[in-house]
């Protein structure tokens, strides 16, 4: 499991180059100059307007993308005018700049970057796809994140986060799921990121796919069950909370009360399963995942559909008033 999401805090130009430099074909023209500058936002900036002298609200703390428009404009200027235009931009502490499309870089742009101590890259990629890939990557880096106590498993494609108090049997239940061919993402500690309207969970790169099973110690899941038994990341679709049996008395039995829980501001369906001797948690977790898929496909739960049948029968029996 590699560290796919670097930490947003302290994410500098050096890390940008190391994580996505190869994919974007970034080639530094200024050595490691300005590599220590820290990114604070997933957004990018086009410096065109600033080059013309309109410096109001110039977003110098973002990655500057010099596309064909900017470079063509600069190339059409006299060297003196070009320097003045560039000084509008580099008068600010610019984070770093990327020239797209493998365009010829005016020497004044390199000089201005060197003077300002700001990194200058060239990329062979076209401007729009470059911006798209860069923002997509940075959005993931800067996505809101939360570490949760629980076990994340992919059950028939549904991301089920199994939670509950310590020692209630989360890992044991999930081990059963893995044994039945479902896939483990992370045991005990799950790092959840919000990507727009979805939540994506992944594990800790150090712990990897190890599980701790009381009495057996640590188990490396892909080693025992094969590489197909694990998965690097998974969207969260359902939270299953394992609860002690003494909570059972207060639980809704009609199945009509659907519960949700909030994670990073998003509502996720929640199911509470009481733990009792003789209840097979693995099979119950599998059924919970299947019911969640069914509810999404049909728009209503089995309990609601059964109750509709009962209600129409009751209405007929009551007769006209």
């Amino acid at each position, binding site marked *: 499991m590699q560290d796919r999401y670097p930490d947003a805090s302290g994410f500098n130009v050096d890390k940008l180059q190391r994580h996505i430099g190869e994919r974007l074909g970034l080639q530094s023209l200024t050595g490691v100059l300005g590599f220590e500058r820290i990114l604070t936002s997933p957004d990018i900036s086009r410096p065109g307007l600033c080059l013309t002298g309109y410096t109001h609200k110039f977003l110098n703390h973002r990655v500057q993308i010099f596309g064909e428009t900017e470079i063509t404009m600069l190339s059409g200027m006299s060297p003196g005018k070009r320097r003045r235009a560039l000084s509008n931009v580099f008068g600010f502490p610019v984070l770093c700049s990327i020239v797209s499309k493998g365009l010829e870089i005016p020497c004044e742009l390199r000089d201005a970057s060197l003077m300002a101590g700001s990194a200058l890259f060239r990329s062979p990629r076209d401007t729009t796809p470059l911006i798209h890939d860069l923002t997509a990557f940075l959005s993931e880096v800067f996505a809101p994140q939360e570490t949760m106590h629980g076990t994340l498993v992919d059950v028939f494609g549904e991301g089920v986060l199994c939670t509950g108090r310590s020692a209630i049997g989360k890992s044991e239940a999930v081990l059963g799921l893995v044994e039945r061919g479902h896939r483990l993402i992370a045991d005990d500690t799950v790092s959840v990121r919000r990507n727009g309207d979805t939540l994506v969970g992944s594990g800790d790169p150090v712990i990897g796919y190890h599980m701790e099973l009381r009495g057996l110690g640590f188990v490396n899941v892909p080693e025992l069950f094969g590489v197909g038994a694990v998965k690097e990341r998974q969207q969260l679709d359902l939270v299953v909370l394992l609860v002690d049996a003494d909570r059972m*008395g*207060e639980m*809704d*039995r*009609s*199945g*009509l009360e659907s519960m949700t829980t909030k994670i990073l501001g998003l509502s996720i369906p929640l199911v509470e399963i009481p733990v009792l001797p003789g209840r097979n948690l693995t099979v119950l977790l599998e059924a919970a995942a299947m019911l969640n898929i069914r509810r999404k496909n049909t728009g209503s739960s089995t*309990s609601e559909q*059964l*109750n509709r049948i*009962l*209600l129409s*029968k*009751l*209405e007929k*029996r*009551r007769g006209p008033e």
Partner: protein
Amino acid sequence: MKTRTLTVPNRLGIHARPAALIVRKASEFRSEVFISNGVDEINAKSIMGVMTLAAAGGSRITISTDGPDEETALDGVCAVIESGFGEEMLP
């Protein structure tokens, strides 16, 4: 053994939600709790049973309890039904 007959007071009758409330209350007691609609008698601690009864609003049902706490069980279950489950009542 204690029995009492009463009328289902809410308009919709004993559908899933009221059934769940009855079952929850009945399960609090050690006594056996049964409900009859005059045709079938079911175990009031089983939600499927109570739903099978299909007791419509205004119909008559008989509750019977049998066991060490039959008196309180009968009162408890009848109170839940007479409350109308917090739903719209029949006139």
